[in-house]
């Protein structure tokens, strides 16, 4: 017997994963082998692995279906857990769960980001007593995720299913990338849905990547391939520090993208006409630095990371081109989550407001728009990072509040000369205040009366008047906004604020 006791052979066997037919099945779906995924994710394709020999004595369970690794991504040390769907469909046995818990513990000790590369059928029922209910059963994975949230970045790349309990892994991560056509999340499979509740539905419709990235909001970034998911994850992590105690690394500054029009010309004269906020964002950030979160979900609000003069910022912007930029329950949720994410990792916030207010009507009241709106206002209030509020065009009603209006202690509230701040717009206000008067006037006099009152109203809310009342801190032309932001973000860097002393708030949910 050789002294190394067939080390090389054993390693080779473990590294080859499950049976060839499962590799072939994955390949047919455009899925990469778990070790190939790791090779793409890690710098130079190198990593160190723990628990490689897990269940190595049992035939057909190499590494017990999960690779747990530590290595560098974009120069930063990170921990990774990655399911191997060629081994029992990536299901969780007792050792699988133990390995996942251990890599979480490692990430916590080292205070480094943790990636979850998910492709798993869920619990291995045959192992349930060992892996499901106990102290170090699967429940501990979620408990740990909750504990790690806000301490270290947790990133989920969903390559295949994440079923039943496993679907909570993405739910507790900061961000979820989903591969279109392969990734899915669901508590009960379509087969189970048909058996238990009688619903006939396809997997794609019930829990597919597109659905989750556009309707449920459980997915953040929809990608076409696994390679793209990995590239996006590498890009994402570049906006973050390794943990809550550190700050994001500054990159080489870049000028904004060359625009066809001046920034000021983007904004239509008619306050009620739509324009594209993406173009406005491009005009003030470093070229090609925008990394959007939830692009397909609640499009009336844009959330994403960008760099301004090389420094990472989180942008929350109304999109007048979608639903008039009105805030809905979903957009409020989207904002609340994004703001919390930025605040946890010291990423300064930039609010770009052009908002007619929160949506009204039966539909949204039934959907609980008030409590969802409260989440956004709560998250924005609590955010203690440098916070700049820019009123690009209008900020009406609670829309002003939600977009970090003056009462919510932004470090400054800047208005463009085109800005209008009011409880409501002139049309609505004149109707509300003078409804009876208008009715009592002879028909031929009404129009002139309304015009006159609107004009008075406009004058009353004139932005220079609001600035003279110290409501806004400065008025800045659109084309000078970037320079203003560069300077201010730099000067606000030393901000060190504790919002409130207590155990924690009673979160509006």
């Amino acid at each position: 017997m050789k002294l190394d006791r067939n080390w090389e052979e054993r390693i080779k066997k473990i590294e080859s994963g499950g049976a060839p037919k499962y590799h072939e099945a994955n390949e047919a779906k455009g899925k990469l082998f778990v070790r190939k995924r790791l090779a793409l994710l890690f710098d130079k394709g190198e990593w160190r692995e723990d628990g490689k020999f897990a269940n190595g004595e049992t035939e057909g369970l190499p590494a017990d279906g999960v690779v747990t690794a530590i290595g560098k991504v974009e120069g930063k040390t990170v921990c990774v857990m990655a399911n191997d769907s060629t081994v029992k469909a990536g299901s969780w046995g007792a050792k699988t769960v133990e390995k996942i818990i251990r890599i979480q513990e490692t990430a916590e000790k080292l205070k480094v980001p943790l990636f979850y590369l998910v492709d798993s059928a869920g619990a291995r029922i045959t192992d349930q007593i060992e892996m499901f209910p106990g102290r170090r059963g699967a429940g501990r994975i979620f408990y740990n995720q909750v504990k790690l949230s806000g301490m270290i970045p947790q990133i989920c790349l969903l390559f295949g299913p994440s079923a039943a309990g496993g679907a909570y892994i993405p739910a507790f991560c900061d961000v979820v990338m989903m591969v279109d056509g392969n990734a899915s999340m669901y508590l009960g499979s379509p087969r189970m849905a048909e058996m238990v509740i009688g619903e006939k539905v396809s997997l794609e419709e019930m829990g597919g990547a597109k659905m989750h990235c556009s309707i449920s909001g459980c997915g953040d970034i929809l990608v076409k391939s696994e390679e793209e998911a990995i590239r996006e994850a590498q890009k994402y992590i570049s906006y973050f520090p390794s943990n809550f105690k550190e700050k994001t690394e500054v990159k080489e500054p870049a000028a904004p993208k060359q625009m066809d029009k001046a920034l000021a010309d983007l904004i239509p004269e008619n306050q009620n006409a739509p324009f594209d906020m993406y173009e406005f964002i491009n005009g003030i950030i470093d070229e090609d630095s925008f990394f959007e979160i939830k692009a397909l979900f609640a499009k009336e609000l844009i959330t994403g990371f960008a760099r301004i003069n090389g420094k990472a910022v989180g942008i929350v912007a109304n999109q007048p081109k979608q639903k008039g930029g009105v805030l809905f329950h979903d957009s409020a949720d989207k904002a609340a989550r994004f703001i919390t994410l930025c605040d946890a990792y010291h990423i300064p916030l930039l609010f770009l407001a052009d908002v007619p207010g929160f949506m009204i009507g039966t539909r949204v009241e039934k959907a609980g728009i008030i409590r969802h709106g409260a989440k956004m206002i709560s998250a924005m209030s609590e955010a203690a990072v440098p916070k700049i509020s820019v009123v690009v065009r209008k900020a009406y009603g609670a829309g002003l509040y939600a977009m970090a209006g003056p009462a919510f202690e932004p470090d400054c509230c800047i208005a463009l000369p085109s800005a209008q701040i009011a409880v409501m717009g002139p049309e609505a206000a004149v109707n509300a205040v003078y409804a009876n008067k208008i009715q009592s006037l002879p028909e031929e006099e009404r129009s002139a009366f309304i015009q006159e009152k609107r004009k008075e109203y406009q004058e009353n809310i004139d932005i220079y008047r609001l600035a003279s009342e110290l409501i806004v801190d400065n008025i800045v032309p659109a084309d000078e906004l970037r320079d203003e932001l560069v300077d201010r973000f730099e000067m606000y860097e030393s901000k060190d604020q504790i919002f409130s002393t207590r155990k924690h708030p009673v979160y509006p949910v």
Partner: protein
Amino acid sequence: MKEIKTTMAGNVWKIQVAQGEEVTPGQEVVILESMKMEIPISSEVEGVVEEILIEEGTFVNEEDVLFKLKDK
């Protein structure tokens, strides 16, 4: 049967396609007036307008069907 639905409640201000007209994904088909704003509604699908279920000035609620389309 393909349909174009509204994503938001509001009054139909302008209908921008006619019966028998081809529409492509991303094309603006209706402008609503809601929350004192002009709200363009775009088609997500491709097809030919077979039936127009709304009139200018009528109220539509979120998810109401505006047009029925047939294949080109």
